[in-house]
């Protein structure tokens, strides 16, 4: 059973359609990456799912309930640029936010301490948020999203603005949360998506281009790349390889050749055979699966 389903979501701002007829479901316990170039409508989609803005058309259902209450009860949301009351301490802010979500004072306190431990801010909980670093603020932002034990955690570009260390911290945190929560996060950094998410949703111009498990999307790819490197460059190699009908494209790179092929098995046999018979001194033979980046660029430019 899906914990959330978005049905035919459309959002129009002043005659300009930002999100266009979007439908998808989220399964419990999955970590889903919402991918798309800047301006694809990712933030608008997440804001609708977080109950911030109302869809122009379509609806959002949680737990397949027909008459849902305020969907903000179900969702923990971290905006792209979280801004806090800088005069509060991290601990105060979490307790405040917890009480806003109808926790009692004691519940809020216990939960706040638990989460401060989880996001490793316990030592800084008495500090004013104004003195926190970017990474600390982002972690506090994740903690505040978790205060009311939401069914779905929505993170808008959680790592994009962070330095490599902050990025690593937050990704590790997401990996930890994945164990017992459903997460939907947007990003335009494909490595991040590949690293922590199970499924992806690929969005462009407000439309859903692709969705599914990462492996599935990988295996759907028609072309694969074989990477060859040699001790010294064989003569006429490009001409020789182009003869094979399994070879689609040859690209010369710094240290070798990236060869795009249709059928890996056939191409592998043919390539190895020609290498053997010509006596080329091969140093590297690698079958690369198309990176998410290739898939992304291909889908977005089509």
């Amino acid at each position, binding site marked *: 059973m899906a914990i959330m389903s978005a049905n035919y979501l459309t959002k129009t*701002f002043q005659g300009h359609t*930002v999100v266009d007829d979007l439908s998808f479901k989220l399964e419990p316990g999955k970590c889903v990456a919402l991918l798309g170039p800047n301006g694809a409508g990712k933030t*608008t989609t997440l*804001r609708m799912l*977080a*109950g*911030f*803005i*109302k869809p122009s058309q379509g609806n959002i259902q949680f737990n397949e309930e027909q008459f849902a209450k*305020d969907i*903000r*009860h179900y*969702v*923990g*949301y971290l*905006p792209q*640029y*979280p*801004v*806090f*009351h800088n*005069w509060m301490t991290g601990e105060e802010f979490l307790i*405040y*936010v917890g*009480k*806003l*979500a*109808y926790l009692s004072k004691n519940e809020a306190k216990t939960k706040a301490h638990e989460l401060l431990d989880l996001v490793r801010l316990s030592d800084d909980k008495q500090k004013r948020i104004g003195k926190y670093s970017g990474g600390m603020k982002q972690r506090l*932002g994740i903690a*505040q*999203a978790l*205060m*009311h034990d939401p069914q779905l955690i929505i993170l808008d570009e959680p790592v994009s603005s962070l330095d490599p260390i902050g990025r690593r911290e937050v990704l590790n945190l997401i990996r930890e949360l994945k164990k017992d929560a459903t997460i939907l996060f947007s990003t335009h950094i494909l490595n991040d998506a590949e690293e922590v998410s199970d499924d992806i949703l690929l969005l462009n111009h407000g439309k859903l281009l692709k969705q599914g498990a990462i492996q599935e999307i990988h295996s759907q790819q028609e072309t694969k790349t074989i990477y060859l490197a040699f001790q010294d460059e064989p003569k006429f190699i490009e001409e020789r390889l182009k003869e094979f009908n399994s070879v689609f494209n040859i690209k010369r790179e710094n240290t070798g050749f990236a060869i795009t092929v249709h059928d890996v098995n056939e191409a592998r046999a043919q390539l190895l055979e020609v290498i053997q018979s010509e006596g080329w001194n091969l140093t590297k033979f690698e079958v690369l699966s198309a990176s998410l980046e290739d898939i992304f660029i291909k889908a977005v430019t089509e």
Partner: protein
Amino acid sequence: MQWQTIYKKEMLDHWRHFKWIWVPIVFILFAVMDPLTAYFMPIILESAGNVPEGATIDIPTPSVGEAMIMSFNQLNMLGVLIAVVISMGLISRELSTGVYELILSKPVRYSHYMTAKFTAMMTLLSVSIILALITGWYYVTVLFGDLAFTQLLTSAIFYIFYFMLILSIVMVFNSFLTSPGLVAFLSIFTVVVLNAFTSIFDHVITWSPMLISDYIGTYIFSGEIETDLYFSTGIAIIISLLLLWLSIILLKRQEMH
């Protein structure tokens, strides 16, 4: 419960930003400034010494009522200005910085958010007004003569509703604008226009809330509360509540992108 949470947080906010210290002090200064200058002016002029020989300075000493009204008049101008300035960013600043995203992504009722902020600011203003007027009353009674304390206190309570109206005007502009400066400008502009309108038609619209301080003046002189004071205060309360309701609706409809 949720309402109290926001209210307490707002009070803490005002406290941490020292508003609980400087706003009462500034209000008190406004309230005592004019009565004190009025009293000491002849003495100051005499001791200044550059008055030509033989010239007599005859500045009539104001009566108790006149002196007390000076306090109200100062608050009417400068007090309102301060009230607008400290509340111009109550919501608009949260909208422009983005804090509202974290707060309103929790199941917070917009009416709670709006009215708790309003009430916290009203608490600060009411305490400041009462402290200021009591201090003003103290100096006035010491320097100019007797005025019943209950009369002052009754006046102060009526006067608070005038500020309630001002604050609700500020809240309306807060609910859909993201620039605190613009909120302040439009709020003051509105007050000025309402004042001008009232003074042009003051024989027709005797119930205008802008006349509250005028009616308080007559009350201080006569000791009798006119029906017009009740009436204009009632109108102030009704309009304030309507404006608050309007600002909740405007905030709900607000869609940032």
